[in-house]
Every structure is written in C-alpha cells, then in structure tokens.
C-alpha cells in the first residue's frame, strides 16, 4: 500500500485524526445524557459496566469474607484434638459451604466481575455488548449467593463435600433439603456464569477498538477469552450432572444407583470434566492480571507475549484432558492412569512458560515495589510451591497416598490462594485507582500483604505435614497422639493472621475507595487502554490501535481521545451505542445500539432466583409465581430492549467512515451470542451422549437395554425424525417468504414448523411410553427419558420463540431488513433439529447397533 493510499485509510497511523476539534457544542452533553447513571433508588436499574462491575467485585469479596469466616470456624474446631466446639453436623456443612462458595460463588464470579469492569475499557468499547444481561447475571448471583449462604443459619446447608458425590448425596443417604440447596442454588448461579461468558466472548470478538487485531489484544483480554470459552465447554457438564442428580432425587430416576444399572462414577466423570477446567478457569484470568501488572511495574512490555498467549490457549485445551487425575483412587486401569498422569505433567509446561516470561519481564526493566508488585511476588512464591506439589500429586502412586488428605488441602489452597487470591488482591490495589481516582494506602497495603503472606503460609504449609502423618480431609475431629496437634495448632494461628490481613484490605478499601469516575489519570504509567480518561460512556472517542501498548506509543493519546478526535465521539441515535468491529482485524463494521437502564432484567433476575430457591423447598406454587413473573419480565426485556431495528440511516463516525446502526444475520451481536449459546447447549448435549455411552459401558452391551426391554419399532423414530426435518424445511421456507416481505406468511410457516417439530417429539415420546419403557426401572429408561426431557425442554423454548416471532411480525417489528430476531431463532432452530435427530439415534439406533436390542 502506498503512503498516498495509506493516508486515505482512516485506520492508518499516518492518516489525520478522524475527527476535527473543537467538537460541536452539545455533543459531549448529549453523550453524557445518554450514558447517565440513574440516581437514588433508581440506581438499581443501572446497567453500566463500570458500576455493575465494581459492585460485582464488592459482592464477590463479601462472599470471600463470608466463606472465609466459615473456614475460621473450622480452624477453631481443629485447634486441639477431640474438640467439641462444633458438632459433626455443622462442621460437615461448614466445609461443604466453604468449598462450594469459594469455588462457585467467589472465584468464578470475582473474575467475571473484573471482566465486566475492565473488558470494555481494555477494548476501547463503550460497554459490554449486552449490558442488561450482565446486570441480570449480577443480580441473580447476588440474590442467589446470599440465599445460599444463609442456609447455614438454618442447618440446611449442603453437607456432602463441595463435589457432593452420590450415592452419599442420593435421597437414600441424604433425605434432607441440604443437597437440593446445592443442586438448585448452585445450578442456577452457573447459568449466570454462562451469561457472563457469552458476554465476554462476544465482547472480545466484536467490540475491540479499530485496529486492535487479535495479536494486539492485551494478555488479560486473551485470558478472559480463554476463561469464557472454557466456561462454555466445562460448565454444561456440571449442569448436566446436577440435572441428573436432581431428577434422581426428585423422581427416582436411577442414574447413580447401582442396583438399577446406574453408577456413582458417572457423577465423578461429569463433575471433574467440569471441575478440573474450573481450576484453570479460576487461574488463567489471574495469570492474565499478572501479565498486565508486571509490565507496568517494570515499565517494559511483557517478554514473550506470543508464548504467553499460546500458553493460555494451550492450558485451556489441556485442562479438558486431566479430569481423571481427581479419580486416581477409584480403581481406573493403570493404562488410563498413565495417560492422565502424562497429561497432568504436560499442563505444567504452559504454566512454566508464564512463570519464566514474568521473570524475564522483570529482568528487562526496573521494578517498582508498589503494593500490587508485592502481591505479585507473593503470588510467585506461593503459586510455584503449589505448582510443584501439583506435579507431585499428578504422580499416581504418590497421589494414592495423599489423595483426600490434608496434603491435598494444602496443595489446593496454595494454587488457588497463590494463583488466584494474591493476583486478585494485586489487581484490587492496581485497578482501584482506576475506578476511584485515588490510590489505596501504601502503608496499609504493605501490612495487608505481609499478614496475608505469613498467614497463608503458616496456615497451609503445616497441612502438608498433617496430611503425610495421616490426617484425612473433611474430618471434624482427630485423635490425640498421632502427632497432629502441633501442625493443626499452627494452621489455626495462621488462619487468624491471614484473616487479619483480609481485614486490613477491607479497612483500606473502606477508607480510600470512593466510586467516582473523575479518574486519577494513568496513575501507574500503564500502556493499555483502560487508563484512558473514562466517563460513564467509557472513553470519549474510540482510538485506532497500532500496537499492544498504545498509551506508551503516543503520550498525547489520552488528550486526543478526551477531545473527541477519534471515532464515534458522540451518540448517533440518541441511545447507548458501541462500535462493532470485525472479529480478527477489528475493522469497523457498524454501530450497535446496546441496552440502557431498565427494570425488566432486574425483575427477571429476582424471579429466576425466587423460582429456583422456592423449588428447593418444594414450594411449587410459590416457584410457579416467581417463574411467571420472571418469564414475563424476560419477555418484556427482550421485546423492548433487543433488536431495536434500524433507527436511522448509516452515519459518519469520523475519518469518512459511514457505518450502519443496525445489523442482522451473521454480523449482529445477537447472532454471535446465540452461536455461543448453541455451543453451550451442544456441550450439555455431549454430556447427555456421554451418559448413555458410559452407562452402556457399565452395564455391558447385553444390559443396554436391560433384558426384557423392548424398543419401539424403527418406524416410529423414523416418522419422528421426518417430522423434525419437515419442520426444518418449513423454517427454510419461512426465510424465503420473509425476504419477499410476506411477513404474515412467514409467521404462519414458523407456527406450522413448530407444530410439526413438536409433533415429532410427541411421536417419539408416545412410542417409548407405549413400548413400556419407564424412567424409574433402570438407568437405561432413565437415560432415554433424560434425552426426552432435554428434547422437550428445547421444544418448549422453540414454542416460545415461534410465538414471539409471530407476535413481532404482527406488531410490525419484523421485516426483510429488521430481522435479527428471526435470524437468531433460525440458528437455534437448526441446532435443535440436529440435536433432535442425534437424540433419536441415541435412543433407538445405539442400543440396536452397540447393545443387546
């Protein structure tokens, strides 16, 4: 490209700034009006990522403190042998609730909260692509996690360990409501984690500043992306396991009951297929924070950026091949163990790359020992130690000794506290000035660091020893004379010291953190976009990006951004907007209108939380009421807040770039969100397939289906499959007629497709029922009905979607141009067709081909 042409490309560094100064009067005021945060009690309706993100971080810190105080109670009980301070019943609830809250309600949410706060700023976006979805996820989490925590006051907190292995957690051995609290309470918060992941994925791929190619993304953005993709593939497995256990508990479908063809190991496979990636889901974003803070603290770019990014992605991949290393002692054959042992070793390579990249970066510059850097050094100490014990427990015979002992308690706290809590505290001290415009106290920060560093090591290092001398985990008491007294005493003292460290951080936050977007400027001299001057609308104008550290390249960038010299310095539609760019090269494509403050998503969150919580207590009618309220709120939210249509013709965002303000089909943000949701869905369906295959393996081919079962004739599933396919054909046809502008015909075709699709599902159900297969008799029947349940659930979603489309077309909100809703439904529909056909094959063909039918 010649320099001449280059100057005409508004994204080129040599082109003039896209917009002239001074800006027209009223432009900034209009932007401020559009993005204004609701005040007073209306604040509850706010959706701005900077505020929601900050409160989200605060909420997850509250959960951290609450779950941590449960740990202090446990340490108090274990301070001496044979202590009778806390009974077994409460103790068993304490460790279950502590682990569950720390893993599900602190570690994952705090990272999502950081992503909500930081991601748009890091990308140069105005907000997340779906601000209301982000707020919905937050509120659902806030209500759900507080309700979950309060169960401990009523003695109904879960008591089966945070991985609640059946059969201990089956109705037979745990008849109380405690386990349902886990299944429903945690299950629905996982949905909020997935909502956050979708938001992050779409945000990273589509809302980057122009010119921020994938290779120019900050490492933390890569880490958030890998984190979100891992959630998409890992969480469905535990959601599926949870559904199966709840179906077993509520309706006696024997997935995990050995006497009727089930197997408790099915739970362990599904749970750890989630549970191991979970560890890296927690660790990778924290590692990403470290990769942001160290370069700033030494004033040099990260050494080995490419290697670190590859390491993040590789960790994500490898972590899905390690789950069996939590199951070494379950009697799995040695050959498989060797494979998983090798895979567990392999994952230490990408981690090693990151550790050495951080050391290399420190070597290139001059380190400032600010509080964030102290926490990073503490992180390196604790995390490397935990990583080394991680290599040890990847070794099968060593793990057979220390598995389920205090050695593991020590290891997991070293990697989680070292690998996650210390970087998060570093992040709080590092980014707090970004939100409050004021540094936290250096003095208090140093106190907090040393108390935490000494406290954590004093608590957990002795646990290695107590494990090796025979202390299993999850014991409410231990005998005297086994040599455990000293080590437990030290652990308890350490826990108190660490708690004091946390208290100092909270005190510092209370004294020095004031949420105000005045902004203290680029306080640490960092190179990335989150340190641009920020308002509620994020950066005033959206810069073009030519490197990984734009603020280091151009010292005047902040001023020019603030003056509105770059892209989209105002609002084109009078509504909240963000710039959408292409997924790899970040070339501007269109301006998307995004959600503004509202009540529907809040009511929907409360309705959802209320629904699941009342269901836990089997208050069916109350649950129904909450469900209806939540459902209506969701409909209103979607109807009024999404797919608002082309509000105006294409407009100039600067530099002669004329962009449309609406997109449908594969360009639209909603389509990408739906695509991600389909990935979540297919991961859950893969767990369903795994359930069939695993139980087939356990029962042997002759036992699948069990003798005496007769499957319906093949004509039935064939007919059902043809009906489902006919539905797909009608949807294809509806697309054709919509393009011709025949909206009414489109609506009728979609409704016809719905009837045909549901007809197919009913035919399948009827044939299975008529053949005498029942879900409670055997794991085979349970699996078949789990498949029917899953297909039926999707049928119900299609029912809502089809009626919604018809309503929109009659309301004049759907036409050949204004059609993003239609495109999204079509994508989901296509997925459901594939899923239904595979489901039919799983029920009817698989037992005939691979089993005894």
């Amino acid at each position, binding site marked *: 490209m010649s320099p001449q042409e280059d100057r005409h490309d508004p994204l080129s560094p040599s082109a003039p700034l896209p917009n002239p100064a001074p800006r027209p009067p009223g432009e900034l005021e209009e932007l401020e009006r559009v993005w204004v945060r609701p005040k007073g009690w209306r604040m509850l309706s706010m959706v701005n990522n900077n505020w929601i993100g900050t409160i989200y971080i605060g909420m997850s810190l509250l959960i951290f403190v609450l779950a941590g105080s449960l740990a202090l109670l446990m340490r108090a009980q274990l301070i001496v042998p044979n202590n009778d301070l806390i009974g*077994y019943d409460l103790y068993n609830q304490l460790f279950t609730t502590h682990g569950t809250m720390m893993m599900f309600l602190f570690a994952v949410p705090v990272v999502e909260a950081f992503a909500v706060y930081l991601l748009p700023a890091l990308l140069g976006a105005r907000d997340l692509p779906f601000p209301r979805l982000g707020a919905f996820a937050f509120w659902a989490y806030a209500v759900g996690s507080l309700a979950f925590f309060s169960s401990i006051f009523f003695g109904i907190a879960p008591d089966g360990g945070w991985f609640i*292995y059946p*059969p201990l957690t089956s109705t037979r051995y745990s008849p109380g409501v405690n386990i349902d609290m886990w299944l429903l309470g945690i299950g629905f918060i996982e949905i909020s984690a997935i909502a956050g992941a979708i938001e992050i994925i779409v945000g990273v791929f589509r809302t980057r500043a122009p010119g921020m190619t994938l290779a120019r993304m900050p490492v933390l953005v890569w880490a958030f992306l890998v984190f979100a993709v891992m959630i998409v593939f890992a969480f469905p497995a535990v959601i599926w396991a949870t559904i199966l256990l709840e179906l077993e508990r509520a309706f006696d479908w024997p997935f995990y009951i050995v006497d009727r063809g089930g197997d408790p190991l099915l739970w362990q496979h599904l749970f750890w297929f989630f549970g191991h990636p979970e560890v890296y889901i927690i660790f990778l974003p924290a590692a990403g924070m470290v990769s942001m803070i160290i370069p700033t603290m030494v004033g040099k770019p990260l*050494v080995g950026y490419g290697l670190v990014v590859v390491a993040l992605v590789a960790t994500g991949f490898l972590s899905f091949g390690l789950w069996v290393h939590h199951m070494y002692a*379950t*009697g799995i054959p040695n050959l498989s163990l060797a494979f998983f042992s090798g895979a567990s070793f392999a994952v230490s390579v990408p981690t090693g790359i990151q550790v050495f990249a951080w050391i290399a970066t420190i070597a290139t510059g001059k380190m400032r020992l600010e509080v964030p850097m102290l926490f990073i050094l503490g992180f390196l100490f604790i995390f490397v130690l935990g990583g080394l014990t991680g290599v040890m427990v990847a070794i099968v*015979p060593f793990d*057979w000794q220390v598995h389920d002992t205090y050695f593991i308690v020590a290891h997991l706290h070293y990697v989680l506290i070292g690998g996650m809590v210390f970087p998060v505290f570093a992040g709080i001290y590092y980014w707090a000035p970004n939100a409050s415009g004021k540094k936290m106290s250096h003095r208090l920060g140093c106190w907090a660091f040393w108390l935490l560093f000494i406290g954590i090591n004093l608590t957990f290092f002795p646990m290695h020893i107590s494990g090796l001398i025979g202390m299993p985990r999850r014991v*409410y008491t231990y005998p005297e*004379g086994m040599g455990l007294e000293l080590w437990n005493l030290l652990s308890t003292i350490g826990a108190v010291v660490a708690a004091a460290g946390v208290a100092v951080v909270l005190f510092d936050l209370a004294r020095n953190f004031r949420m105000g977007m005045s902004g203290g400027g680029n306080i640490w001299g960092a190179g990335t976009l989150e340190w641009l001057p920020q308002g509620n609308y994020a950066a005033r104008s959206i810069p073009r990006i030519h490197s990984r550290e734009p603020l280091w390249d151009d010292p005047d960038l902040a001023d020019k951004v603030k003056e509105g010299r770059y892209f989209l310095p105002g609002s084109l539609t009078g509504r909240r907007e963000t710039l959408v760019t292409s997924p790899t090269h970040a070339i501007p494509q269109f301006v998307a209108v995004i959600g503004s403050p509202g009540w529907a998503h809040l009511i929907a969150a409360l309705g959802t939380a209320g629904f699941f919580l009342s269901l836990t207590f089997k208050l069916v009618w109350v649950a129904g009421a909450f469900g209806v309220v939540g459902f209506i709120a969701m409909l209103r939210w979607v109807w009024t807040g999404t797919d608002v249509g082309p509000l105006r013709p294409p407009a100039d965002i600067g530099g002669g770039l004329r962009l449309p303000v609406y997109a449908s089909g594969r360009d639209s943000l909603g389509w990408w969100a739906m695509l991600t949701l389909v990935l979540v869905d297919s991961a859950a369906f893969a767990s369903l397939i795994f359930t069939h295959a695993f139980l087939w393996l356990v029962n042997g081919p002759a036992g699948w289906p069990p003798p005496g079962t007769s499957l319906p004739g093949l004509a039935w599933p064939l007919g059902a499959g043809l009906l489902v396919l006919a539905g797909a054909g009608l949807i294809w046809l509806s697309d054709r007629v919509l393009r011709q502008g025949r909206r009414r015909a489109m609506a009728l075709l979609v409704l016809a497709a719905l009837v045909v699709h549901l007809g197919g599902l009913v035919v399948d159900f009827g044939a299975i029922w008529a053949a005498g297969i029942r879900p409670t008799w055997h794991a085979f029947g349970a699996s078949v009905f789990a498949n029917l349940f899953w297909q039926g659930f999707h049928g119900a979603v299609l029912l809502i979607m089809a009626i919604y489309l018809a309503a929109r077309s009659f309301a004049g909100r759907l036409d050949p141009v204004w059609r993003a809703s239609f495109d999204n439904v079509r994508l989901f529909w296509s997925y459901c067709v594939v899923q239904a056909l595979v489901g039919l094959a799983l029920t009817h063909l698989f037992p005939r081909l691979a089993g005894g039918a």
Partner: protein
Amino acid sequence: MNLDSANLQAVLSPAGPYAQSIAELSWVLFVGGTVIFLIVGVFLALASFGGPALRAHLGSRRFILAGGVAFPVVVLSALLVWTLGINRAVSLPLGLGSEPPLRIQMIGYQFWWEVRYPGTMPDGGVVTANEVRIPVGRDVVLEVTSADVIHSVWIPALNGKIDMIPGRWNTRPIRADRPGVLRGQCAEFCGAQHALMAFYVVAETPPAFEAWLNRQRLPAPPTADPVMAMGRAAFGAAGCGGCHKIRGTEWNGQIGPDLTHVGGRLSLAAGVLDNHRGTLAGWIAGAQDIKPGNRMPSFATALDGPELRAMAAWLESLK
C-alpha cells in the same frame, strides 16, 4: 483411644515394601521440588537485582523457552517414565515366594468396616470387623467394595488408598515386613461420622496369624457362668441379634458387625474406643453420644446396670 506411637498412620514411616517405594518416591519429590523452588527463586532474585549483562540474558525469549519448555519437558518426561514403573509395582502383588497372595475382602459401611477372609471356612470364610489381621512377609490383596456410599481404605504405612465404590470391586496389594499394629482410616467423605471411621491392621508372624485364624473359625462357646448367661440373655432381649450375627448362637443379623469374636479385637466403634468391658458397656449404653449419627441406637434406657455389665462381660469373653 490413646495412641502411644505417632507413626501408626504416616506415609513416610512405611512398614512394608509398597509403602516403602512410595516413601522413597516422596523423598525424591520433596528434595527435587525444593531444589526447583530455590532455582526459580534465584532466577527471580537475579532478574531483580542482577547485573545488566545477566539481566539481558534473563530477559530474552530464549530464557523463557529454556526454563518454561525445555527444562520441564526433560525433567517431567524422565519423572513420568520412572513413576509409571512405581505405579505398576505398587498396584500389583509382588509375587515373591511360592505362596499365593492372601485374599482379604473389606466392605465399607457407614461408619465401619467388615473384613472377610474368603475360603477360610467350608461355607465361606471368617468374618470380622474394624480390624485386619495379616501375616508378616506375605502378599495380601485387599478386595474392597461398599455396601452403601463411597468410602476409601487408607493404610498409609502399607500402601496408597483405594476407593470402596458400590457395585465395584477394587483391589490393592499390601504387605507388612515386621509384626506390629498399624492404623487405617476412611479417606473419602462418607457422611456424619466419616471422621470416626478408622481401623487397625495387626501384622503377626505366620504361626500367630494361623493361630488367630483358627480361633476365628470357631463359633462362640456356650456359657455356664450365670453372669455370662445373663449377659447373653440381655443381648437377645434387647434385640441386638436383629443387627448382629454371633456364630454359634441363634442370632444372625446382617446390619452391624459380626460379633462372634468381638472380645478379641483391639478397638470398638471402628477405631474409636479401646476394647474392654468398660468401653463395651459404655458403647452399648451410649453409642449415639460417642458417635452420633451411626446406626447403632443407645441402649442406656433399655438396659439396667447389671444387664449392661453382664452383656459387656459376655461380649468381652468372645475372644
């Protein structure tokens, strides 16, 4: 129960060859891990405070590739090959000597252990509870399963743990090199009293073991002593036989431990109490106070003092 030795249940105080291999492996790991930890620390210190030339080396991609890729790949590959050999060695019986391994079956219950010696009697085998007797110097294969929830057998001084999973039989070889008493414990959380689910392993010389086995084969003897007879009668009257079996009597309960030779065991209530007349009476009277949530009711109100003492005396006599 008062234990006078700190090493009954310790990984690094092995009492047999399997645990010995793992203990040696553990020491290699601890020393190697410490060395690597120190090396990383030294690199970090050099990166922070070293001279410019040295720091230029440390600040390069080459350093990352050497430390983060080459070093772990070499070390971990070697470690993998070496530890897979150990894995094999500790998961299969050594097969030394001419004797086939002794089979012992352990079945986990909430919150105790049934221990069977299959093939030691014409109609099956000796059945005991919460105590595993083994002959010194002979391979023993533990075959384990569960009658209710998942448990895990862990005897650190002899070998790593193995889960007891309903519907599955898992195996783990053990062998003791010298006579002595060791302790094992449940390692997989199994409910209310998981913490109080332990047992003892008694390793004896082969003749002593044979003698013990011979005693175990015998049914409970009839008793003529009036106190003993009163205890026996109280056992029946209180309904104990509904849950407990005592060979040589009319009681054939299948829910709790077999009590045919309960008096000869080291502990009561799965490693919780020493075993003598006093603790027997205490356990019968207050099982729910000592180990709340276990399936044995407290009989304090059902039995009067003399009955309780007589029953304890009779049970103690069943050696």
